Structure formats: structure tokens, C-alpha cells
């Protein structure tokens, strides 16, 4: 009886410890976002009065309205949207096609292609900035959203291809064989059988690339000069002036910029979960 209650209480302690550890992690991870929200809601006058208080004496939405109505925020937002959605779309398209080929076909030069793609992942971006700047200027694409879309797409394709390849590897070949015997062409088998089963993988890739493009700063700073072409991360620097930083507005803009990423993940979340749990064949 005593041993039983000892194990029982041990189990409770273990479960409490687990919950506590998780809670600590969640607090740690979400704290910057809380701070972002807190400052965004604090009136400018009180910003430096309260020090590090948990919550300001009074709150206001004035930063949000200023950001939306009196700054270029909406332009940045729109540019970021165009760049991120286009990049995510093109990367997923190319990476799916390449991933399928790597997963299903044996062809001459396959290993070299894989090696070169891996190689591109080995260089630090800083090394590549100067040559890319030269190439983009040479093509007359400097200060255009197209240049960002092309560069982001090029940099995201290798990793996305490996990601998609692993999703295709997870779909048994037997399914395509069965479809082809049932009367499909290879393309029909791809469209009617493989494609619906890879949707979770594509959603994951879309989400990953969208977020990466949404928050990219280095190339955005380098390749874009004018305010009307700036994406959100570089635009955020506009809140820093010679005379000071407008913290309230910067944080409000940050909060607003989080919304698309969050919505995107809520939307693809069910595909992600489904992708990990669908039992395709045996079992």
C-alpha cells in the first residue's frame, strides 16, 4: 500500500516538474512578444517614466493609429506581402518539382545536383552580398521587388527541395504503381494520388518560406533604397531617426507585422499535423 502511494506521488511530482519546465520555456519564448505588446500600448510620455514595470499606468492605441495612418507602414506591409507570397509560391512550385524528381527518378548527374545544392547552403550570406548586388544592378533590377523575389527564391530552393524530397520519399511508390495500373498516366498519378497526399508537405514548405521571406532584412536593406519599395523589416528602421527612436510606433508596427505570420500558421496548422499522422499503407 505504501509503495503504491509512493509511486503514485512520484508520478504526480514528475508530471508537475514536466508542466513547470514547459511553462518556463513558454514564458521564456513568449516574453519578448509580451514586451512588444506592452510598449506598443504605453503612451509615449510614460515610456521612460515607469522603468521596467510589468504594465503601464495608462494604455493607448495611439501608436497603432499613427503607424497605420501617418507612416509608410501600409506600403511596407503591402511590399512584404507581395514579396513573401510570391517567394513562397515559386519556391514551393520549384522545390516540389525538383523534390519529386530527386525522390522518384534515377538520372545522370543526380548526385552532382544534390551536392551542388548542399554546397550552396555552406556559404555565409555575407560573403555573397557583394556579387549579388553587382548581378542585380547589372540586370537593372536594383530597387525593385522583383530582385528580392528572385534572390529569396534562389536562396530558399535548396532547403525546400530537400524538405519536399523527404515528403515524397514518405509516399510509397506502390501507390503510384497502383494508380498507373488502374489506368493513370504518370502525370495523372502525380496529380490525383501523390499531390493530395503531399499537400501537408507543401503547406509546411509554404509556411517555412513565407516566414523566412517575411522577416529577411539583409538583402532587403541592400537591394532596396526608396521608401515605396521597402519591405517591412527594413521599413521598421525608419522609426529610428537621428534624434531618437520612436519605440511605441516601432513596437506597434512589429505587432501588426506579426499578424500575417500567425494567420498563415493557423491556416496551415491542420495540414502540418495531418502530414505527420496519416497512415498511407501498412499498419
Amino acid at each position: 500500500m505504501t509503495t503504491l502511494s509512493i509511486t503514485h506521488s512520484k508520478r504526480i511530482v514528475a508530471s508537475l516538474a514536466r508542466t513547470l519546465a514547459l511553462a518556463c520555456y513558454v514564458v521564456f519564448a513568449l516574453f519578448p512578444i509580451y514586451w512588444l505588446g506592452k510598449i506598443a500600448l504605453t503612451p509615449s510620455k510614460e515610456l521612460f517614466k515607469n522603468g521596467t514595470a510589468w504594465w503601464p499606468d495608462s494604455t493607448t492605441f495611439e501608436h497603432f493609429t499613427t503607424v497605420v495612418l501617418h507612416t509608410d507602414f501600409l506600403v511596407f506591409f503591402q511590399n512584404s506581402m507581395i514579396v513573401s507570397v510570391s517567394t513562397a509560391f515559386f519556391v514551393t512550385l520549384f522545390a516540389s518539382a525538383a523534390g519529386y524528381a530527386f525522390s522518384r527518378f534515377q538520372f545522370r548527374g543526380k548526385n552532382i545536383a544534390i551536392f551542388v545544392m548542399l554546397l550552396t547552403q555552406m556559404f555565409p550570406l555575407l560573403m555573397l552580398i557583394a556579387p549579388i548586388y553587382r548581378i542585380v544592378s547589372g540586370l537593372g533590377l536594383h530597387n525593385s521587388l522583383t530582385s528580392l523575389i528572385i534572390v529569396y527564391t534562389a536562396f530558399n530552393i535548396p532547403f525546400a527541395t530537400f524538405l519536399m524530397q523527404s515528403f515524397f520519399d514518405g509516399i510509397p511508390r506502390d501507390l503510384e504503381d497502383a494508380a498507373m495500373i488502374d489506368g493513370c498516366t504518370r502525370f495523372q498519378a502525380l496529380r490525383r494520388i501523390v499531390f493530395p497526399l503531399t499537400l501537408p508537405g507543401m503547406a509546411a514548405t509554404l509556411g517555412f518560406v513565407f516566414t523566412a521571406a517575411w522577416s529577411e532584412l539583409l538583402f532587403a536593406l541592400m537591394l532596396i533604397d526608396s521608401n515605396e519599395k521597402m519591405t517591412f523589416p527594413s521599413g521598421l528602421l525608419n522609426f529610428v531617426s537621428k534624434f531618437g527612436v520612436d519605440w511605441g510606433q516601432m513596437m506597434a508596427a512589429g505587432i501588426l507585422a506579426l499578424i500575417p505570420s500567425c494567420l498563415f500558421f493557423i491556416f496551415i496548422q491542420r495540414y502540418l499535423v495531418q502530414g505527420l499522422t496519416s497512415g498511407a499503407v501498412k499498419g
Partner: protein
Amino acid sequence: MAEISFSNLSKNYGSIEVLRNINLYIKDGEFIVLVGPSGCGKSTLLRLIAGLETITGGEISIGSQIVNDLEPRDRDLSMIFQSYALYPHMDVARNMGFSLEIRKENKDKRQSLVAKAAKTLGLEDYLDRLPKALSGGQRQRVAMGRAIVRKPRAFLFDEPLSNLDAALRIGMRFEIAKLHQKLGATMIYVTHDQVEAMTLADRIVVMNAGEIEQVGTPIDLYEQPQTLFVAKFIGSPSMNIVPASQSDDGIELPGGKTVKPGGWSKNLNPVQLGFRPEHLSLVEIGKADCTGKAIVTEHLGSDTFVYVDVKGWDPVIVRQRGNSNIQSGTELGISFDTSRLYMFAKDGKTIRGTDT
């Protein structure tokens, strides 16, 4: 329905030869089982028939048509996979009717054909379920349903029962046999399980290292194996094989006696001797051809397998009808049925005696 034939068929992957010189004629409506150890090329042969792999040399014809370059979808065959290969995002009815959907059959016809197949296989209650909500046996039934809905020219089975547990496997084996009787279709069935091969086949094709070793009815293969490989592969437990040395009076046995297999003559020079467990009998030591000690006895209820340690040989298995009460360590006398002894030459071929 169709006959299928191969002539001089070969398949290479680069420099690796997977199949060579395959010649076989399969009659319309015949149940052919391809059997052999893993890596012998039996599944590759099936995939060549289906068109999922391209052949390197020779010809395959289905009916009177040479199909070497025909796409899988134009061959009008059905295939049942070991993994079932059900489309996970479609319910059972749609899985079964998929081939008709692709061929743009109208919905009413599709539904009636699916319903008919579902009735044959006892799947009526599962038509709106997804594959993941079915048991292994049910999934394999759906795979069979998908195959029969279309009335193909022939059915191909790729180790369809290997993923099922033993009891279910026997049940499904029976179902497949019934299906063959009912449809009378040509069926080609790949397995590594020789019991499945023996029970289902009209004719068995034993394959080894990319070649056909022997083709024949199950009883032919059991009674007249042409090679040592077939002799060992067919029959369960498999044939006892022991080294043979010849004297003037026959083949020498441990303990000094000799035995003369049916059709024995002096110039045969076999290097190995084979005898099936069911063709040995346990007799009094005085009357025995040779003796040994019982090591292990396996009781199956209907039969008892006694493993006997005979000096100089690997353990010999003796099959006893019913429940035999032999303790391990007991000294036993073994007697041979000389008409059921097999002799094998150095090249692995069976030596046929003069009067057989």
C-alpha cells in the same frame, strides 16, 4: 482473360543481371505461382508483366499482343500489392472504383460494379470508410475488390498475404482460391511461401538467381524435383539432404550398411542423397538402415517431427503420424523407403535412375 507468354526475357539494372533467359507459356485461366527466395527476381518478373519496369531483352505477350513497350494502363491488368497500396485519401468505394473513374465510366455503372465486388468480398458495410479505419485483412480485401471491379485480362499478386498474421493468411488464401474458381481468370502470384505456392497453384514456377529452375504442378515438383534447389525448396519441413559416398552395393550409410535408391546403378556417382521426413520410418534398431539419437521432438498434434542426430550427418527430420511419445536421447532406428530416395549430382541436378 488472356494467355501470357515470355520468350527469352531478360532484365538488367546496369551491369547487374536480374533475370535471364525466361521462357514460359501461361494458359488462359491458369493460376501460376512464382516462388523462390528473396532476390531471385520473381517480383521483378511480375513488375515486367505489369509494365512497371521495362524489359532489357526478349518479349512479353498478353493474348496475341506483344506488350514490351505498352504503358501499364494499356495492358489491362490488375495488381495486388503486399503493402495493399490503397489510396489513403479516398474511401473504400472510391478506392475500388478508381480505375472506372479514370476510364470515365458513368457513376451508376461504377456504383453497381463496386457494390457487386463489395458483396463478393463482404465489404458492404465498409464502403464509406477510409483505409486507415480498416484492419489488415479488410485492407487486403479492398485491394482485391479494386482488382476485380475492372474485369482485367489477368491478375497479378505481389506477395499479397505477407503482411497478415498466420490465421488471417490461411483465410485469405482460401478467399483467393475461391475467387480464382469463380472468375476463372489468369492469375500470376508471387510468394516466397512454399505452402501458399503448393495450395494455390495450378503450376508452380520455381525461380533461383534470375532463372527458372523448374516449372510444374505442385505434385510434380514435390515428387520429381529436377534439381537439389527445388528439392530443398518444396516441401515442409524441407527434404533431408546428406552427403553420399558410393560403394559397389549402393550408397554407404553411417553404421556400415548400404542402401540402393530406386533405379540405382554403379556409374551414377551421386554426391548427395535426399529423403523427405515423411518417407522415413522409425523401426527396431536391429532392422534399421541406420541409427541415431533423438535430439528434439516437435508435437503438432496431427504429426510429430523428430530430429535425429545421425553420426556424420546434419540432424535428420523424421515425420511421425499422430502424437509420438519419443524422449530426447532415445536411440532410434531409421528405415528408408528406397523408391523415395533422391540422388543429386555435383552440379546440383537430380540423377534419374535407370528404371525411373
